[in-house]
């Protein structure tokens, strides 16, 4: 706190001031996990293993990016599981429509996600329904649509070459394409959040929607747009996952909701909105991916993963995400 008459103190180094303790913790945990892993297996610190982990992390990274934008506004997107699946199935479906379908497969899959995101966004922004409820319902509708479309079985459509290339290929220096895609997505989102009116408005809405509205910002449009972006990114994640596995499968998105939320929260983004840094989300995604990998190496079954996710989210929330005491 500065008092009115205090002289301006010397500028502190801005880098030190800007580092969020949550992000520092997340990076610290990553180092710790790598050390623990290297005790188990010497492969753990090899470039091949690390690149493989980053490649796997890319899919979660893209999905968590959308989640982060929504969480920054103090909302949440629970439609991730089936929007991911919609993206995967619809892009694979488009692929079976000749050359045109093949070229448009990726944008079509993303567009389906955007459409679902618009429905959620409309409910949140204009009907002012709590986001967790609208997105749950949209998730149910998306599931229903896919069940009708596929007849309840995993579709036989296969991913296009482009999808497989993006998800599994490598280009220069053996860097996985998926990682490059994530890096580009991340760079775009960093630009969006820090340099555009939209980004400022997202943070402002998360901090105090009332003040943002009174500042003459079209808050409802921003919310709508943010959910559309989140839907699009979830679907894009699904497109890549379809490329990774060569095809789409029922409930392939189920495994991504919890890790996406965990990654965002672990990265220091406040679940109440308004505070968070994309670098934190990157750290969160890598942390979650390493954790999964180590649990797999240590042969801890799915149950352990679930319990650890839950416990870690709660612990991080208790550390960083508490609401202010009632006045």
């Amino acid at each position, binding site marked *: 706190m500065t008092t009115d008459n205090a002289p301006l103190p010397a500028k502190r180094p801005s880098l030190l001031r800007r580092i969020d303790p949550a992000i520092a913790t997340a990076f610290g945990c990553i180092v710790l996990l790598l050390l623990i892993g290297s005790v188990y297996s010497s492969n753990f610190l090899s470039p091949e293993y690390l690149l493989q982990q980053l490649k796997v992390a890319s899919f979660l990274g893209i999905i968590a990016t959308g989640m982060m934008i929504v969480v920054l506004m103090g909302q949440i997107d629970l439609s991730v599981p089936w929007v991911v699946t919609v993206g995967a199935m619809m892009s694979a479906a488009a692929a079976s429509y000749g050359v045109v379908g093949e070229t448009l497969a990726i944008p079509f899959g993303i567009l389906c996600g955007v459409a679902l995101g618009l429905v959620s966004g409309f409910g949140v922004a204009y009907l002012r329904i709590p986001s967790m409820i609208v997105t749950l319902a949209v998730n149910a509708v998306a599931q229903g649509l896919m069940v009708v479309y596929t007849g309840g079985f995993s579709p036989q459509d296969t991913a296009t070459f482009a999808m497989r290339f993006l998800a599994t290929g490598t280009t220069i220096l053996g860097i996985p394409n998926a990682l490059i895609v994530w890096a580009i997505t991340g760079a775009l989102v960093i630009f969006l959040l820090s340099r555009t009116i939209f980004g400022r408005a997202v943070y402002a809405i998360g901090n105090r929607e009332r003040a943002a509205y009174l500042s003459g910002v079209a808050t409802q449009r921003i919310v709508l747009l943010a959910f559309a972006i989140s839907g699009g990114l979830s679907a894009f994640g699904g497109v890549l996952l379809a490329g990774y596995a060569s095809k789409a499968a029922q409930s392939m998105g189920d495994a991504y909701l919890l890790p996406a939320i965990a990654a965002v929260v672990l990265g220091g983004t406040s679940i109440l909105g308004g505070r968070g840094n994309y670098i934190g989300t990157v750290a969160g995604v890598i942390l979650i991916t390493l954790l999964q990998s180590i649990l797999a190496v240590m042969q801890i*079954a799915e149950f352990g993963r679930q319990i650890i996710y839950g416990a870690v989210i709660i612990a991080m929330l*208790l550390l960083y995400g508490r609401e202010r005491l009632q006045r």
Partner: protein
Amino acid sequence: MNDWRYRFAEQRGTLLALLIFLVMFVIYVSNHPAGFTANVVQTAANKGVLLAFVAMAQTFVVLTAGIDLSVGMVFILCNCLASYLVVGSPSTTALGLFAVLATGLVCGAINGLVVVFGRLQPIVVTIATGAIYFGLALLLRPNPGSTANFNSDLADALTGKLPGGIPASLVALFVVVLIIWVPFRRSVIGRAAYAVGSSETAAYMSGMPTRSAKLVAYALSGLLGAIGGLFLTFFTYSGEASLANGNTYTLFSIAAVVLGGVSLFGGKGSAIGAIFGALAFRTIGDLLFVFDLDPLWQPLFQGVVLLLAICLGSARLFQVKNRLDLFA
């Protein structure tokens, strides 16, 4: 005094849910190939009762303007637990039942403690604890399975027919309402739970026990989830840690609560409404079946019904005159 007008207004949501249910059920039964027989009713009741318990569980929390996304997982966890513990002689069975119910109560209480004393948002807390409860269920039942000396006599008794063709599960539901919901509704704590959901500040300023009210609501939610889990075990004789099942029940419990006239903004509604909401939602889902429509359409149909029900709840927005009130 025209008490009846107010009694009616108080129960309007519940009565509407009852009406929807009755209409749906009449359509269902009259188109059912077998018609209105005790067996048709029993099957319908057994399916509906499961969701009814979970919807009741959700109601407790929603009344306080919270939400419990772990309710489906408590349901699954208790199902897995019951598949081990409801075994053997009457005394060991009783012990098992007690342990299952206590587990549910503890799960709910943990949610409540973290929400109240951790001052965290119910939604993320229950997503996270839900993962933990599901993990425990997986630990218990990595693969679906049952125990050899499972007490199937009790299971059959509670899922069969009583003399006169009345489904036993409906009677069980009625008893649960009578010994859990009615006392809650009439207690000081229960009233405080409604007050917290309606206006937490006003409740606090009026000196109501807001914290204990929330704690009790979450704990009872866990208990009801456990009862649901027990009944799932009675129907299947086995336990299965199914993620899809848990998520579906959580989602459907919200749908049932909304259909049952319980306000998602808290303070309004009743568990009885939620029960009718659950029965109605189940029947709506099964309508497709009797009309010979492809059952593949069922999830989509249920999703759309849920989405529409939620959107109807936002009608109150159009009465807001000061737009700043939208951002409260």
